[in-house]
């Protein structure tokens, strides 16, 4: 079997499993799976920016927060239907991301990381500001009404939200995959690897970098919106720097510059804390730190890279680049 065919079969199998699972799993597990799907969207957003375009962001938690609060405010204060808030959150985050991307053009690697790190640390404070309290709920946060299932007999609320998130994720992944395998993807990666050569070749680096920031923020914002619907509550405490670090861990573990790896990364970030909790209560973060370092040193291409290496051994057909 060639690699291409194996990939398609694998993806189809994954799709079937993904659609079947909520009918056999318990409500709580469906909830957890939805969380994984939501994180997978957020991680894909971050990966677009950091993995494919080389702009390090330690502050994507801020975009997740903007998406989440957009949904919460629109639902609570303005009375929009929940499904409409998601694309609005995405559009808003695209705008904010693009605007943030403009000054970011002047920032190189570690300085951009520092600026986004500062943004992430400051996010809870900005969410609590008295001037916006009327909208954001201030320190109390906002409750988010969980969407009910429109086909109540067939799917319950948890399952409905799962399929909704799955659908959105599928759509966004398709868009990203299409984007990345064409000219745009090559341009992004060229900017990442050799920015000067890319500029010399005629790629409008400024435009691409800002747009990528926007798209990346959009994805993470959509994830934030879905996440708010899932958790049912937003508050400044939900979006600390630790969230941004979760995202970075997920991207690194899943595989930088790998789309499929993001699913693994999302599962890792969602499930490992619960497992590590049993070893010791301080353990999860120590494990995260150790994992980050170990992966960067030993397996820089992450789980996806590992899977690719294994696949190369198994399916000796074709010599495709990434």
């Amino acid at each position, binding site marked *: 079997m060639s690699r291409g065919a194996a990939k398609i079969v694998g993806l189809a199998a994954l799709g079937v499993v993904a659609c079947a699972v909520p009918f056999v799993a318990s409500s709580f597990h469906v909830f957890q799976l939805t969380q994984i799907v939501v994180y997978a969207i957020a991680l894909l957003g971050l990966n677009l920016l950091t993995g494919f375009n080389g702009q390090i962001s330690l502050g994507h938690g801020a975009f997740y927060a903007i998406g989440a609060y957009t949904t919460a405010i629109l639902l609570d204060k303005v009375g929009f239907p929940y499904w409409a808030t998601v694309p609005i959150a995405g559009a808003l985050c695209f705008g904010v991301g693009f605007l943030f991307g403009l000054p970011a053009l002047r920032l190189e690697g570690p300085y951009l990381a520092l600026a986004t790190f500062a943004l992430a*640390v400051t996010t809870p404070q900005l969410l609590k500001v008295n001037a916006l309290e009327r909208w954001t709920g201030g320190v109390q*946060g906002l409750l988010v009404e969980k969407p009910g299932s429109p086909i109540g007999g067939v799917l319950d609320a948890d399952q409905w939200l799962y399929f909704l998130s799955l659908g959105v994720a599928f759509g966004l992944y398709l868009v990203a995959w299409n984007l990345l395998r064409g000219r745009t993807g090559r341009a992004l990666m060229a900017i990442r690897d050799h920015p000067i050569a890319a500029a010399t070749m005629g790629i409008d680096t400024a435009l691409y970098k800002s747009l990528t920031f926007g798209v990346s923020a959009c994805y993470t914002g959509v994830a934030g919106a879905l996440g708010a619907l899932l958790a049912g509550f937003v508050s400044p405490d939900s979006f600390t720097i630790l969230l941004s670090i979760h995202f970075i861990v997920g991207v690194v573990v899943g595989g930088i510059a790998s789309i499929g790896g993001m699913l693994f990364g999302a599962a890792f970030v969602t499930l490992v804390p619960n497992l590590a909790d049993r070893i010791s209560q301080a353990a999860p973060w120590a494990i995260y730190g150790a994992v980050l370092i170990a992966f960067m040193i030993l397996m820089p291409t992450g789980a996806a890279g590992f899977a690719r290496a294994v696949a190369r051994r198994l399916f000796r057909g074709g010599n495709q680049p990434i």
Partner: protein
Amino acid sequence: MARTATFVALVALLAGVASAKDTPGVTATEIKIGQTMPYSGPASAYGVIGKGEAAYFKMINESGGINGRKINLISVDDGYSPPKTVEQARKLVESEGVAFMFQTLGTAPNTAIQKYLQQKQVPQLFVATGADKFGDPKGNPWTMGWQPSYRIESRIYGRYVLKEKPDAKICVLYQNDDFGKDYLIGLKEALGDKYATMVVKEASYEVTDPTIDSQVVSLQGSGCTALITAATPKFAAQTIRKVFDIGWKPLHFMSNVSISVAAVLQPAGVDKSVGIITGIYLKDPNDPAFKDDPGMNEWRAFMKKYMPDADTNDANYVYAYGVATTLVQVLKQCGNDLSRENIMKQAANLQGLKLSVAIPGTEIRTSPSDYRPFSQMQLARFNGKSFERFGPVLSGD
């Protein structure tokens, strides 16, 4: 006759089977309880409360449990992050099938899971936060707090100032979150129209601020003579020290969560903490008045046997002992009916329970319209060694 008897027996049997299904988390030998605590992250100093409670239940189990059932406390970490609390609560309720949630810690975490628990009709008992909104039997009949709320506390401070020092100028230093803001609300309630004239300055701080020196300097500059500090331990210690260092001697009220001698006053400097007033409802382990007190000796014996490495100066362990005792009383009152409805009913039916670690003159009292087990406090002043109580036991209602 025989048919009627069989019929009645059948109905009773079915009722028995049905009610057995209605007591999730409970078997003939075990009661499963769920809890989320911040064992990691910014609020981890409170994780010791969960550990204290676990040790208490171990003690109960070793003497046979309650009505033959052992208590199985499943306490998990939520890192004080509301989305994580939601996930853990769902796991505890749906996967582990606990009977109820006990002492989940934090205002934001509890707010996040409150609606879910109301919908599932799972008791959210004795939440570990002083936020006033958790004592609302009409709106949230399945949620109940335990400690005197922050609003009750600051009402007591406000009334004291009104009575003893009506010309005082008050300023407030508060943490910029639910906890701190609740103190402002309570003060407004106590002072009423006089709030605008008596309170000259309010200053907030964030937990990310390295120091609160600037805020303290601002407050001194406003010329106030009474200071109410609604701060968590680290910032409380900084405040006490700074107030002393700049030579300011206001009438200083400190939030009840930060009056532990070991965790706050000693780092700040006990000589700098003299004169601080707080409202207490639990016995201070260092108070010489309780040196031979049978209630505290009971607690000391418990600490020695079940938490030998713990710091006995940490008031959190007294708190844990008190709440756990209250829960055991509720479970005892349930007898053999450990359905969630009955657990909630008995929790709202505590008549004058006197805790061995609570100060004399207070008692726990709840009713279907009163979901505030503890609403009494007594003012106490730090004398360099311990908190000396003065005045009557006050009610914050």
